[in-house]
């Protein structure tokens, strides 16, 4: 367990090694409002009295401390450490949105099907075949968990899972087909009404439209629009992305484009 006793102003001094199992953990007696982490397990406490929490958490997240700068850290108090991670987790679960004086522990990701750094496909069998949907679900959960509770990496337990073991049709069936259905639906609606309007305005029927260059251009724009613009924000996002692709180039060429004098400016 990594502890850092850091004080807000002078340089930090030490990280002491504490193992989860044996040593008492350093804990700050003073009230430290945990910063709002994405994790649902922490909540701001408005009334940290004694600052000691009965259940678990051992790891002090230094960031809580540093960001908070409101309180000095007096001599760190020592508090009990929970016996094991599992208990920790169950405590946390039991407390739910319990008020904590200091940061929660960093519970590791645990799942019976996650074995040796990858998903044990044998445990995902359904009707004798691997249930890939369940694998995808499990992986989604794992990633979300890690995002909220980053873990220390370890070469003893490397992550070996590779998304490419999941067959392509799982992705297609689960993610791409529904999306394709929606987009095709939109394209069909837009296409139908565009064809109708063009017909009513110009008298060119559907079959004739498909031979006309201008109409084909409109069709192309409609398809591109449906593909690229899915939400309102996409219009701005696309503009930003376009600008982003050339922005770096412009920054590099700045020294060549001096004062609009033609002799000095050089295009890359």
């Amino acid at each position, binding site marked *: 367990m*990594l502890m850092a006793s850091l004080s807000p102003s002078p340089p930090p001094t030490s990280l002491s090694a504490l193992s989860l199992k044996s040593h008492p953990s350093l804990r700050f007696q003073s009230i430290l409002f945990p910063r709002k982490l994405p994790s649902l397990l922490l909540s701001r406490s408005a009334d940290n009295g004694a600052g000691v929490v009965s259940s678990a958490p051992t790891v002090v997240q230094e960031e809580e401390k540093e960001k908070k700068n409101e309180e000095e850290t007096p001599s760190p108090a020592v508090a009990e450490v929970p016996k094991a991670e599992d208990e920790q987790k169950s405590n946390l679960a039991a407390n739910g949105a319990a008020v904590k004086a200091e940061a929660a522990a960093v519970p590791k990701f645990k799942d019976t099907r996650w074995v040796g750094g990858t998903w044990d496909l044998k445990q995902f069998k359904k009707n004798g075949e691997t249930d890939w949907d369940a694998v995808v679900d499990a992986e989604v959960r794992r990633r979300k968990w890690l995002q909220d509770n980053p873990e220390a*990496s370890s070469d003893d337990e490397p992550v070996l899972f590779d998304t490419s073991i999941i067959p392509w049709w799982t992705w297609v069936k689960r993610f791409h087909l529904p999306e394709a259905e929606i987009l095709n639906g939109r394209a069909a609606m837009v296409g139908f009404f565009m064809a109708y309007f063009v017909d009513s305005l110009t008298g060119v029927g559907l079959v004739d439209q498909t031979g006309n260059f201008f109409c084909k251009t409109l069709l192309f724009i409609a398809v591109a629009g449906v593909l690229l613009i899915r939400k309102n924000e996409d219009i701005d996002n696309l503009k930003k992305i376009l600008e982003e692709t050339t922005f*770096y*180039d412009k920054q590099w060429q700045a*020294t*060549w484009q001096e004062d609009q004098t033609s002799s000095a400016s050089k295009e890359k």
Partner: protein
Amino acid sequence: MASLIFTTTSTTAGDYIRSFADLRRQTRLLSGCAASNAQLGRRLPGVVRASRSSPRLNGRKLRVAVVGGGPAGGAAAEALAKGGVETILIERKLDNCKPCGGAIPLCMVDEFGLPLDLIDRRVTKYISMVRREVLDAYLRGRAADAGASVINGLFLRLDQPEGPGGSYKIHYNEYSAGGRGVGERRTEEVDAVVGADGANSRVAKSIGAGEYDYLIAFQERVQIPEVKMEYCKERAEMYVGDDVSPDFYGWVFPKCDHVAVGTGTLTHKTDIKKFQAATRLRAKNKIEGGTIIRFEAHPIPDHPRPRRVLGRVALVGDAAGYVTRCSGEGIYFAAKSGRMCAEAIVKGSENGTRMIDESDLRKYLEKFDRMYWPTFKALDVLKNVFYRSNATREALVEMCADEYVQKMTFDSYLYKRVVPGNPLDDLKLAVNTVASLSESKCLEQ
């Protein structure tokens, strides 16, 4: 069709990066009359003169001041002195331990003939870890051996020359040997100035080079127990994630007898301590039981300054902003640009016998840009694609496990060129990348 539009969820680069026109405009406000005088001077039509027609210097050699004694300054001063130019190298702190990852590629060891005992650690045979104080001192020593005079002083400002052939007057505080204190005010007249004084370059301010966006890199040096040091000895680790940095990475780099743990960010500088804590957490198993012996921070340029050359003043290294995105690598480019600039000066002055002018310095810019632009651009693309969100970072980590990727990356890193590979493998790689990104995005939910 798979959705390839990765909406800019976490990156705020689009909002944050000021339009570079603003940066240019600032130079006019900042620079005051000195730069504008120079600008007026250059507006005259037909003023560009080839160096061949430059007047010979009578009875003296070309004098050049190199401001800043890091890798860029040291390399520049050495190349200048070797080329027969009278060189002074001004460095404010001769024992400076610049906060730096300290990773240099193999090509630098080759091209600059660095002795192997400079290198503390070898992470695979391609990446060498050095201590900056050791490297900088060595390069300065070589410059001194070649004939440059190394001055311990702090550059204050420079005065523009009066006329087209005039000299630059540089003002600096010279510190007496070993003595502390304010130092003595001195001035020198030189024909050209090479600004190698790093990210907060004063030479850049003097010429109104403009501002750049910069990252803050924060690093802690951690002394860890011997048994853990053994593990870290040959490994450099990089951590990616929103917890560690929204637009950069956290690292654990081995130094001689300790490790450097750090992270950096451009868009969320105020949260740097939080990111550092997250990096320490990720590296917990490696640095458990360690002691933080110091911590340091430094700006890292994100892109080159709008103006890198003005008159007979050129910027090199971090002062010019030659740091790659995505990886934040700058030592090699600093040394290389210093050397290139010096070589351009030597060539343009025909070994110090003629006066030079801006066109000679622009030749260095041209050469550098042409040689390294693909590398910088490739890393920019990598950053834009892979540092966008946690999903893309997962895809990046997955891709890095691929052997072909590793081979390509190492080759490019080794040679600092974008090395084309086998087209069929490239195609497979492209497909794999798209698939990886797409799958990762799907898993992001």
